[in-house]
């Protein structure tokens, strides 16, 4: 029979690195049943000590504790409590021992053979700190071994020790974490569990009859969870009412004596125990309370006053470099020279020489190359932007952004936890929306799903670059402005929605781990840049290619002289007929012609489609070359002639804020699990985008054309919006809501 070993530890402690070292390519990756959390299982390599037995290594999700709050914690503890592996390798980060040992004290209570692998020992030595592993073993009651998972140092010894423990079945000696009234209360609860009678208990949908007393190895663990009033354990055990009353009385007595709540009592006692252990086992080179380099940087970067202005300055710098300077130079070359002067004329010439029909030549050059080329023209800018964002991520700064935003969001009833899906959504809305699963509170999760797509995703960047480049004179501030429009939309929507019954309530507490700053690794940065950029190119080669063919057909054919045929004038095309029918809707927003309407509507297929449509309708680079030959340098590209400056900003605003692409709407439907909520989300986004764009354009017109009576409507709408934002909430709002805490 196979031996099963579980790898358990905090996130980023090195579990997966060790898992890869122990199992190599003999891995299976799937999902834990019913959830999206990744499940990784592998067979131990013979070289690592398998010795003929099948040794299965299970990489568990990274968790800070075995509480029932997050999906990962529930999965980890269900596996350990119910599936009972033969041994646990508890990986702890040697550079952060105190926090990591919190989980270790809980794992030791499960009655499963266990060893502690203290990882990153190379970093510990480099920092000049010293960990006495013998002392740690003696204090924890389990073997503690050194490990450097990244270099592989110690991995073989750890694996061999775990296999030996599994074969021997040696359970850790009980760790004396609790004392005084807590120990007394726990003893009382354990006693109650020992004499529990027959009863049903519910587990994962299957009803099992528990005919025996509680398994001895787990009694201690269950007693502690009952003391903490763990919802899931209470539901699982289904204790008789008199037993439950007795346990509750024991807990209440302890709480009264210690003047604290049960969960805090347990937490405090665990940390007190860990502190006592560290006194003997850990010697730090740096004096306690002194600041690391990361701490010193964070005092400025996450400063209460400076944090947000620094974030604004960083984003402006990134976009200035990516859009205006380096990125603009390479994109101009791609659009004007590569496509405009080489590809399209060369292709046209070749197709003409081989005798291809005009319609087929038009399909290839205007349709496919025009549409796909318009999107690909922005690839260089995207790569530069992704490169800079990857640097910010690898350095560790982007993690701080969620912390900074939490401080701002919390004032408006939102949580920084909602910002992480938005941060992910700045790459692509689909995973951003799916990342909202990590938000336990259903209200906050729904609100996050609805507002995530307000933050410009990668596909919207070409729209921003196109408008900025062709209409607004290449202004570098357009890009950052769009992000701040998105953030403002999130905040305003959060405030308004929080005043409704379905979304009212306090924001969830937010605790996150800030990784230490480090110099960016070029390998990671380039890999991230490539993956993002290649994904962009792949979409151009699939979705955009197909839709460009369709758009070319629709714009090239229509009814002329009562017959369906190829049309010379696009205004007689099928596309113009469809767009023309919807265009009046967008007239109040300043971009109510059929071309802009078609581009906006087709943005539902993929947001890059907006640029691709203009590319098909006006050609990539062709018209720019004509203008250069005519010497019409002061004339903007045909795309720009579609818009005034205000109309362009209105068009940009609408496309940024309106319903996202079909893929993202599909993700909303999956996460909401409900067509009504999906329709509400899409409807809210579209109406919100329409109202904001309407206000922006019409108030802009007051500046350019002077006040007209019709402008009373946007002023009234703006007043209404202001009222919704500043009116008092009809539902209670706790101003003393927990603040974000840096772990």
């Amino acid at each position: 029979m196979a031996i099963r070993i579980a790898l358990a530890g905090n996130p980023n402690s090195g579990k997966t690195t060790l898992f890869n070292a122990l199992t190599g390519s003999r891995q299976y990756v799937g999902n834990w049943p019913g959830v999206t959390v990744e499940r990784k299982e592998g067979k131990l390599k013979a070289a690592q000590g398998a010795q003929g037995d099948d040794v299965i290594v299970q990489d568990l999700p990274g968790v800070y504790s075995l509480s029932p709050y997050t999906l990962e914690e529930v999965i980890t503890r269900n596996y350990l409590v119910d599936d009972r592996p033969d041994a646990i390798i508890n990986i702890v980060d040697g550079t952060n021992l105190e926090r990591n040992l919190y989980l270790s004290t809980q794992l030791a209570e499960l009655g499963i053979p266990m060893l502690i692998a203290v990882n990153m020992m190379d970093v510990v030595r480099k920092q000049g700190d010293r960990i006495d592993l013998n002392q740690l073993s003696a204090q924890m009651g389990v073997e503690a071994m050194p490990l450097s998972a990244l270099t592989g140092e110690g991995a073989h010894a750890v694996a061999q020790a775990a296999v030996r423990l599994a074969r021997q079945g040696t359970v850790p000696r009980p760790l004396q974490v609790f004392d005084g009234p807590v120990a007394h209360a726990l003893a009382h609860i354990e006693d109650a569990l020992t004499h529990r009678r027959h009863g049903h208990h519910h587990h994962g949908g299957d009803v099992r009859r528990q005919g025996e007393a509680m398994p001895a190895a787990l009694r201690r663990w269950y007693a502690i969870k009952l003391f903490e009033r763990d919802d899931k354990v209470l539901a699982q055990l289904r204790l008789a009412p008199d037993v439950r009353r007795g346990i509750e009385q024991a807990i209440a007595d302890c709480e009264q004596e210690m003047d604290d709540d049960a969960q805090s009592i347990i937490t405090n006692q665990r940390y007190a125990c860990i502190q006592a252990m560290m006194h003997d086992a850990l010697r730090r080179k740096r004096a306690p309370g002194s600041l690391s380099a990361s701490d010193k940087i964070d005092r400025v970067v996450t400063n209460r006053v400076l944090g947000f202005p620094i974030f604004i300055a960083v984003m402006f710098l990134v976009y200035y470099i990516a859009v205006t300077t380096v990125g603009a130079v390479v994109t101009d070359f791609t659009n004007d020279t590569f496509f405009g002067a080489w590809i399209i004329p060369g292709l046209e010439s070749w197709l003409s020489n081989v005798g291809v029909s005009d319609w087929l030549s038009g399909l290839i050059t205007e349709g496919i190359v025009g549409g796909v080329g318009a999107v690909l023209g922005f690839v260089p800018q995207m790569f530069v932007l992704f490169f800079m964002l990857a640097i910010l991520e690898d350095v560790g700064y982007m993690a701080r952004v969620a912390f900074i935003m939490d401080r701002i969001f919390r004032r408006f009833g939102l949580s920084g936890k909602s910002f992480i899906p938005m941060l992910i959504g700045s790459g692509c809305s689909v995973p951003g929306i799916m990342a909202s699963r990590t938000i336990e509170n259903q209200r906050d999760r729904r609100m996050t799903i609805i507002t995530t797509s307000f933050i410009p995703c990668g596909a919207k960047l070409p729209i921003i670059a196109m408008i900025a480049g062709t209409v607004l004179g290449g202004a570098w501030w357009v890009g950052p402005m769009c992000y701040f429009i998105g953030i403002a939309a999130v905040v305003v929507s959060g405030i308004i929605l929080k005043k409704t019954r379905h979304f009212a309530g306090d924001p969830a507490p937010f605790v996150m781990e800030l990784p230490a700053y480090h110099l960016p690794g070029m390998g990671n940065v380039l890999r991230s840049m490539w993956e993002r950029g290649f994904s962009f190119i792949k979409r151009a080669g699939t979705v955009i290619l197909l839709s460009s063919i369709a758009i070319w057909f629709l714009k090239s054919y229509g009814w002329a002289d009562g017959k369906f045929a190829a049309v010379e004038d696009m205004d007689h095309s099928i596309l113009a007929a469809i767009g023309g029918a919807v265009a009046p809707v967008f007239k109040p927003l300043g971009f109510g012609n059929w071309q802009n309407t078609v581009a906006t509507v087709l943005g539902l297929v993929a947001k890059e489609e907006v640029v691709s449509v203009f590319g098909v309708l006006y050609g990539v680079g062709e018209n720019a070359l004509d203008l250069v030959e005519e010497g019409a340098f002061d004339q903007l590209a045909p795309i720009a002639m579609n818009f005034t400056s205000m109309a362009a900003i209105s068009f940009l605003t609408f496309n940024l804020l309106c319903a996202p692409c079909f893929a993202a709407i599909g993700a909303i439907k999956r996460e909401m699990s409900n067509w009504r909520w999906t329709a509400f989300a899409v409807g809210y986004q579209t109406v919100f985008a329409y109202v904001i764009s309407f206000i922006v354009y019409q108030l802009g017109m007051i500046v350019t054309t002077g006040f007209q009576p019709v402008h009373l409507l946007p002023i009234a709408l703006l007043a209404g919006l202001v009222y919704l934002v500043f009116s008092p909430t009809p539902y209670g709002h706790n101003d003393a809501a927990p603040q974000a805490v840096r772990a």
Partner: protein
Amino acid sequence: MVDWIIGSLVLLAAALAAGKLIRDRRAGRSACTGCSGCAHQGSCPSRPCTQEQPHINQ
């Protein structure tokens, strides 16, 4: 004749693109979009659910 050859190549490209989209959708596969969700969450947020039952946190 040239129209047929060139036109077939265009149709082939379109068919390949459509086929890739359909295959990816059926397999529940979403290519990496570089959203860096893995960096923030430890696993790819785009990986679809394998079962129909409600999520634990719903």
